[in-house]
């Protein structure tokens, strides 16, 4: 019995020691969180606002949102000594189903000062060539003759056309591609980096990302839905315009720390 009690004591002490070690580690490393909220020129947009023609784009067309989901990936923290901590993770933000609007990155970073934090809209070309079971299951693929990989964004809705009738638009962002078929070519990259700027991380941190959907239609290219509405995936010029307009869609609203 004495031996048994001694063993119990050792186990008890070891368990408590290991908890202490975990606490120390947890105090210096955090899993960053990215929270995405959406708006149309400052007016909040959630899936509760879908399916109703109520937004006006820069070209004057009224439109509704019926489906919206997009991928962000490769979260990068750049330290004050320019060390790059790249967190190789991705997240499908599914506004339609209110899924994954808050993304806790499954990797940790040390607390401290960072010169910049960034993420990628879509996938870089290397990541885009990988096989993701969750994105396949979500039917987010791009056909092989268009280069394969995945949609960066699927943004579907309806707009009022010149005859004031509802017509569909499929604003699908992918890697721009020419010569669809067995040997497609890629005129330029259309994923892009969203820079959030410097941050001093002192504890559990949430980056509140604001996504102004109106920017997809206005800056620098005024988007004419009467001209560019559907079948945009094989339209490399349209993809490049999406890439250009996307640069001003995402911004850092605030940083919450505990």
């Amino acid at each position, binding site marked *: 019995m004495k031996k048994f009690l001694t063993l119990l004591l050792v186990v008890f002490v070891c368990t408590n020691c290991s908890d202490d070690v975990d606490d120390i580690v947890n105090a210096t490393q955090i899993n960053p969180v990215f929270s995405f909220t959406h708006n149309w020129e400052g007016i909040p947009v959630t899936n509760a606002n879908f399916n109703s023609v109520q937004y006006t784009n820069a070209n004057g067309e009224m439109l509704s949102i*019926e489906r919206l989901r997009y991928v962000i990936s490769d979260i990068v923290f750049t330290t004050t000594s320019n060390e790059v901590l790249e967190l190789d993770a991705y997240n499908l933000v599914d506004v339609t189903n209110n899924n994954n609007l808050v993304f806790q990155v499954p990797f940790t970073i040390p607390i401290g000062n960072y010169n910049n934090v960034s993420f990628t809209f879509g996938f870089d070309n290397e990541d885009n060539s990988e096989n993701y079971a969750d994105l396949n299951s979500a039917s987010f693929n791009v056909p092989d003759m268009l280069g394969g990989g995945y949609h960066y964004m699927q943004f579907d809705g309806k707009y009022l056309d010149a005859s004031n009738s509802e017509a569909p638009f499929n604003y699908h962002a992918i890697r721009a591609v020419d010569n669809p078929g067995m040997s497609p070519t890629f005129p330029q990259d259309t994923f892009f980096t969203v820079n959030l700027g410097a941050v001093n991380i002192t504890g559990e941190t949430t980056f509140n990302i604001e996504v102004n959907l109106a920017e997809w239609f206005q800056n620098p290219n005024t988007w004419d839905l009467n001209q560019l509405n559907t079948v945009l995936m094989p339209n490399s010029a349209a993809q490049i315009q999406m890439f250009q307009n996307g640069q001003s869609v995402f911004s850092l609203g605030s940083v919450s720390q505990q």
Partner: protein
Amino acid sequence: MKKICYILCIVLFIVSCSSSDNEGYTPVAVDLEIPEIFSSNILPPVIPNTNPLTEEGIALGKRLFFDRILSADETISCASCHSPQNAFSDNSATSVGVDGLSGTRNSMPLFNLAWNYNERFAWDGKELSLERQVIEPVQNPLEMHSDWDDVINKLQGHPEYPELFSRAFNTSTITQDLVTKAIAQFERTMISANSKFDRYSLGQATLTPQELNGLDVFLREDKGDCFHCHGNPNNPLWTDNDFHNNGLDATFTDLGLGAVSGDPNDNGKFRSPSLRNLVYTAPYMHDGRFQTLDDVIDFYSEGLQNSPTIDPLMKNIDQGGAQLSPEDKADLKAFLLTLSDPSFLTNPAFQN
């Protein structure tokens, strides 16, 4: 120390007692054998912790699936409307129940159900799990028209079922919950993943030029653009299991998902069926309105009807749809037929 010893003895006694209470037959756990085409491309199947697969549970579910005892007059079973030779659908537009009355929906084929990640079943998504799905057809007046209490009494008084339930669930007290669990277990084993296209994807078969062109039509946004709702070579379920108004009607006699959700924006939306095994599952659509695959392709090419909830993925609505050439239609059909899996129809595991 004496007290500690007493406490230890009591704990030991309680543990021993509870162990002996649980003695009995332990059903044999089954790991679902996942086809390579699935395991290498899509997420694992949904197997609820509350209903793990066992050999005895699956066997019991299979027996119940084919047993007419579930229907009021014992004239039809699940398999009457979900027949193996029709990929567990049937060949009528709407199935006829025990009272000779037709339902309002086409019998959905049953396969790869464990990969319906959102677990919304039936054409309108009203059933929120496979287990819960089993409840409705048994008591639906247009289908089996049974009373569940009667069904349980019949099963309980059966010479064999109490023992089968005992082996599957460690109790011979039969309940509706256990009946639904057993049938759901069997249904989760019904996997179809051995089509010509599956073998092509695995490098074990080749497609003809016509079939390859059909795949191209299927995938091209400026042609069929079928893939946004019906999967692609990387999603071998060939459905998104989501709900869409695909432009069948300008006005709705059947609200589909809208009747379930109460949201008018869902009116006319129905779950995308898988395109696997299409050749065995005619007629098509939620109401079985199209007799042939050609009718379906013609509809998507020239027959779309506009309505407020039509999915924005449906294009060229004012021209009726995709406007496919006769050659593209024939090629698309040839491709769709490569999704047929005849081995699924004859798999002994799924026969009565």
